[in-house]
């Protein structure tokens, strides 16, 4: 029974990995070969890279996404969260401040601001 359950989980894990690879290559294809400044694909690629612990690459794509939409508080927060996960709390706070300047009542940003300040002590 345990073996069956384990085998089932392994199959799901393999499938997830396969779909992650497919999603990454599809979004990469858009910005490499179709439209470099396609914001949505750049953003989704950055999110996926973040979720798969590729923080450095994720950061690069979020930076480019932020250049495409400098006033988008969601992108600014995502960028801040990557800095948070990299342990760079000063940069995290800096980007959250920019996000909050655009959207002062952004609850998620306020939460991460608190977390970053706590860790930065």
């Amino acid at each position: 029974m345990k073996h069956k359950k384990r085998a089932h989980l392994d199959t799901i894990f393999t499938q997830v990995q396969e779909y992650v690879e497919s999603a990454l290559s599809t979004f990469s294809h858009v910005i490499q070969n179709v439209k470099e400044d396609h914001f949505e694909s750049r953003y989704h690629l950055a999110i996926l890279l973040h979720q798969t612990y590729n923080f450095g690459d994720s950061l690069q794509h979020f930076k480019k996404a932020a250049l495409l939409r400098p006033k988008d508080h969601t992108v600014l927060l995502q960028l801040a969260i990557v800095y948070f996960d990299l342990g760079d709390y000063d940069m995290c706070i800096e980007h959250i401040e920019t996000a909050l300047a655009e959207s002062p009542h952004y609850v998620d940003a306020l939460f991460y601001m608190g977390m970053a300040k706590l860790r930065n002590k």
Partner: protein
Amino acid sequence: MYEEANEDFKLAFKEFQNDITTKYFIRSNMGINLRLIGKYEESADMLRQAVELQPSRPGAYNNLGLTCIEMGEVNEAIAHFEKAIKFDTSAAIYYNNLGLAFFNNCQYKDAVIQFDTAKKINLEKDVPYEDPTIAFNLANVYLTQKKFFEALESYQEAIMIHDMNPKYWHHKGIVYEAMIKDLEE
């Protein structure tokens, strides 16, 4: 530019009042133009006049349907697209638009039937690669229904028709994301 066109239509509207067909086309085109500049109520009025002038011409019904969609009147839009199809069963675009109306109305099975019909008509006319939006629209329905493999296939079909449209590629990526989420759940 559309505003300028609107002035031209108004002039034509005043000048040509005798011939019914000319009146129909002026009102139809004016209705389309008014939709493009966001004047939906006026667009609908103009297109209704066109429909009354020549009730067996499908074009004005189709355009009235599109205006109704913009106004959020999806059920009325469905009725107009069905009327357009009644008078011309060979225009893929009418089935496509009816499919979009059904999709907006969350009638997914009906939407798939219409998009499939539109594709079939294009195939029969030997112009299958003319319009990637039908495949794209069909894929959107499949994605909403969580029919991921069908969605992938249809997005790929759209990509094969127009491989430099980032929207088609991006949505293909979205399907993989949805598949990941579905497995994680």
